């Protein structure tokens, strides 16, 4: 295989990891959001539904992020270095969020007494909000080509991820995660025979969907003025995918209105895939725009080849295990899958 094929194959696999992380772990973060904002007469049941859905799977979902990071520094060390330098502050805050969310969720399950549980619950919710928000802002910073400068002054530390575009991307990521979680939970609660809870989450899914649409409507014009390269890609090469994302968003909302939860779930997940695909298409061949390309920052071909072999062997172990996990916890009840 030529070097370019190797480089793009690995990049594609890492992109898939981002997608899976967004679709699965994104919903776990969203679950934290709904835990924090659990309201109404069924607040406790809502929290319980979130815990039931997340408990067995969130650690496995989280590993996709690790997979992405290790893959990035093995395959594209120069890209990893540039991102670490340019996004030092948001990455550090993401870590704080990950610690807060993961530890608090595990601790809460074992805490005695309402007070301790409440405090862990708060930490869980806050961690679940800041992490996807900041990750979204980081994507925004990368897409606008501002993540590339090593941050050395205070201004450089803050700039790339606090532009209006990056902040909107962060909010968008948060809304998408919350929406995914609510949509998944409608399916799971209904199939466990809890129709009132399904209604609660249906309302939340619609609210999150509306927020997503509004934020997307803000993000696109902002992109055209502050991230012209990205914008050109989105309406050029990636136009069909961008359009498909919009169609799926509308379809998800309509299905939700008509209580066709499983259709809504498929459309919502598909929408996330399309958004990330549009971003990737708009940005290729850049890895960290504007200066680092995929080929330009790749490790030598020997490394890329051994990495692909590793991924192949690893997938043979991973996919059946993952299948088992989801079969046992999500698939026993046929309505859930």
């Amino acid at each position: 295989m030529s070097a370019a094929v190797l480089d793009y194959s690995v990049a594609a696999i890492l992109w898939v990891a981002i997608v899976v992380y967004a679709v699965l772990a994104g919903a776990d973060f969203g679950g934290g959001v709904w835990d924090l904002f659990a309201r109404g007469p069924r607040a406790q049941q809502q929290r319980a539904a979130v815990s039931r859905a997340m408990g067995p799977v969130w650690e496995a979902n989280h590993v996709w992020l690790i997979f992405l990071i290790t893959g990035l520094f093995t395959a594209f060390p120069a890209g990893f270095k540039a991102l670490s330098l340019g996004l030092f502050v948001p990455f550090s805050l993401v870590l704080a969020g990950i610690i807060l969310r993961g530890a608090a969720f595990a601790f809460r399950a074992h805490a005695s007494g309402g007070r301790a549980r409440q405090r862990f619950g708060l930490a869980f919710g806050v961690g679940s909000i800041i992490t996807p928000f900041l990750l979204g802002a980081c994507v925004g910073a990368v897409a606008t080509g501002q993540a590339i400068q090593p941050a050395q002054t205070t201004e450089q530390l803050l700039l790339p991820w606090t532009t209006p575009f990056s902040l909107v991307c962060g909010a968008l990521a948060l809304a998408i995660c919350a929406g995914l979680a609510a949509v998944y939970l409608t399916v799971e609660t209904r199939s466990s025979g809890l129709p009132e809870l399904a209604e609660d989450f249906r309302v939340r899914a619609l609210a999150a969907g509306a927020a997503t649409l509004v934020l997307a409507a803000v993000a696109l014009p902002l992109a055209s003025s502050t991230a012209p390269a990205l914008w050109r890609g989105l309406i050029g090469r990636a136009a069909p995918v961008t359009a498909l994302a919009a169609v799926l968003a509308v379809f998800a909302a309509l299905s939700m209105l008509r209580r066709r939860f499983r259709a809504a779930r498929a459309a919502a997940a598909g929408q996330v895939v399309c958004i990330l695909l549009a971003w990737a298409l708009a940005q290729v061949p850049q890895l960290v725009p504007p200066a680092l390309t995929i080929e330009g920052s790749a490790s030598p071909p020997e490394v890329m080849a051994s990495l692909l072999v590793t991924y192949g062997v690893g997938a043979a172990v991973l996919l059946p295990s993952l299948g088992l996990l989801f079969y046992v916890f999500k698939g026993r009840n046929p309505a859930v899958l």
Partner: protein
Amino acid sequence: MGVSLGFHIVFASIGVGLPLLLLIVEGLWLRNRDPDWKLLARRWSKAFGILFAVGAVSGTVLSFELGLLWPGFMGYAGGIIGLPFSMEGFAFFVEAIFVGLYLYGWELLSPLAHWLCTIPLVISGAASAWFVVTANAWMNSPTGFRLDHGRVTDVHPLEAIFNPGTPIETTHVMISAYLVTGFAVAAIYAVGILRRRGGTVYRKGLLVGMLLGSICAPLQVITGDMNARWVADHQPAKLAAMEGQFRTESGAPLRIGGWPNLASRNTDFAIEIPAGLSFLAYGNFNAVVKGLDSFNPGSTPDPRPVHLAFDVMVGIGFLLLGLAAWFFWLLWRRRRVPEWPLLLRATAAAGVLGFVAVEAGWMVTEIGRQPWIIYGVVRTAAAITPAPGLLWSFWISTAIYVALGTTCAALLLRLAGATRSGLAEAPETEP
């Protein structure tokens, strides 16, 4: 990074060791249906749930920190040594998946299927430790690439993984994980028995922990000795620092204790065993041992922490060995689990000392390698991030770890307390 690693390694060691104990006790329960074994498995499974989550988040911090704190290191080494980290990623997947199945599957899976879940847990825990330590061994003996005018070329990732340091370092580390887990578990039940909360569960917990720890203790000392001889051949400056050896001499004595005095270039107050070091390191009483003074200034580590940490590790290694011998001698003589208060107190201390030894051992490896981050290739100073405010992030992360560590400990103590107060199964709300 040092702080994060020092924190993570505690949870990682348990993450490697505890699945093996779960495999044993749940397997015993399946065989003879003695409810004590089931109770142990369920209790440990809860503790494992907490410990695994903390291990996972602290490990995530590490993988980011490699880039955040050491961009120079990763930019350089990522391509060469990233592969074991990527392989480790799959081990994490397997581990996290089967942790989910194990912790939440008590009611959903058949007893046999549930027990079978411990097997991938044992394998993936050991594998993740193995992979990450190959990376550390590579930092000690970098191979698998060529330097061409400062550019890395000719990379052979497999050669980097199987570098000369790998076999011995991975063995020593993996055994240490089982060792500390065994003694930690034994310590918990020793404390329980000391507080007169007897009962068969306690004796069983003590016995299983002691068995695992005691099998590992001699292996740990033996592999440690091999490790030291490897260091003597490959990193003479580290050996000199470990042993407080300032001058090059033949028939060098083994120095136990003492404090390396930088001004007088001598290790004061040490107990010296004549020619002991020459013999241990090279198998010959007259062998020449290089001293720190024979290296260029600025290319040796500070011997004070290294020597101290080394003596702590080795001292604890022999203490644990002695404890294991004592316990099993009594067990053999009396044909029942010994409950002497003195022995139980020593066991309780051993639970903590094991972790102290692990931390000390990593101090030896990491500080002993200085000033290099990749031995002989990249200096630490060249690899650190230029981002300002590092001190801030250091203190903040330390504070976070302290909070996380104390909360975790408090919850675990509560779990231990629950075992004490209600030996019957408490209502299982959530795992």
